[in-house]
């Protein structure tokens, strides 16, 4: 799996992501500077990592979404290339129109860093094939604006088409307000686009891939992707 991690000024989880990709795919990802206009040849997976691109100024992800490299990423997605957008990456993907909706201030207006539980609603995507549907994983979140909001029609479509991939839940998979730390509509933690090749999610699976560090619940996502490309090859 050849992956490319985008680097915008102010992005700060690119190292975490690169480490996870290296550990799980055995291959060093290419780090791609925002001012580039093309992705490295042969890129399988584009990753938009977390952080505070442009300081989160204006709106999270707004300025990064208009960077030169993003035209190449949109074209890549249009051709069916896989794009994984995590946290600030999710915000950037929404701003760039790759995914619907927007991420607003957390309901309690505070930044929150903690482990949360995610129920996996779909395991038949390239991103979640490493998990079973209904499975619950524990991964950290670290964001101030992860409150997913979209208009009623969009939400209805997302739900109707089964495009909500991850939901904040209790450890045993029950979706209820107590476990929805940021107030997201329908407890949405991650969605895919219509075509199923762009995934946006707020939590950080890349921070839970090493057994020695205590939790490996994030591995499934990367292992699934590696598998996907192995089978495709």
């Amino acid at each position, binding site marked *: 799996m050849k992956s490319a991690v985008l680097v915008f000024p102010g992005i700060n989880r690119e190292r975490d992501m690169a480490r996870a990709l290296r550990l799980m795919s055995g291959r060093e990802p290419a780090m791609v500077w925002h001012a580039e206009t093309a992705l490295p040849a042969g890129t399988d997976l584009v990753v938009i990592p977390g952080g505070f691109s442009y300081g989160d100024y204006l709106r999270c992800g707004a300025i990064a979404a208009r960077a030169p490299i993003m035209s190449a990423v949109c074209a890549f997605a249009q051709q069916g290339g896989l794009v994984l957008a995590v946290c600030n990456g999710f915000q950037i993907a929404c701003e760039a129109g790759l995914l619907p909706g*927007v991420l*607003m201030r957390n309901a309690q207006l505070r930044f929150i860093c903690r482990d949360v539980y995610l129920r996996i609603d779909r395991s038949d995507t390239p991103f979640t094939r490493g998990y079973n549907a209904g499975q619950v994983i524990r991964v950290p979140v670290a964001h101030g604006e992860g409150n997913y*909001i979209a208009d009623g029609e969009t939400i209805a479509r997302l739900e109707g088409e089964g495009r909500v991939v991850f939901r904040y839940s209790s450890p045993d998979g029950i979706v209820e307000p107590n476990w929805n730390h940021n107030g997201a509509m329908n407890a949405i933690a991650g969605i895919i686009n219509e075509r199923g090749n762009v995934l946006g999610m707020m939590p950080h699976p890349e921070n839970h891939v090493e057994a020695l560090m205590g939790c490996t619940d994030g591995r499934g996502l990367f292992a699934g992707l590696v598998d996907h490309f192995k089978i495709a090859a």
Partner: protein
Amino acid sequence: MKARVTVTLKSGVLDPQGKAIEGALKSLGIGGIVSVRQGKVFEIELEDAARGDAEAMMKSAAEKLLANTVIENYRIEVSG
């Protein structure tokens, strides 16, 4: 020349921040509040240009960057 671009959430879009502020104002004992919505205002200093040009430029700034037109409206005022 100066421009002011005001960006506000479209009606119907949830505004968690506005809602929280509403609650906070109420609990501070400030009465009579029905609702609060929060928006942004950009005060932009421009090189002198024909007013029409400036307006077009600001419109493009708002469309391309300052507002997320999926959820936000904008208003432009050019002066001076």
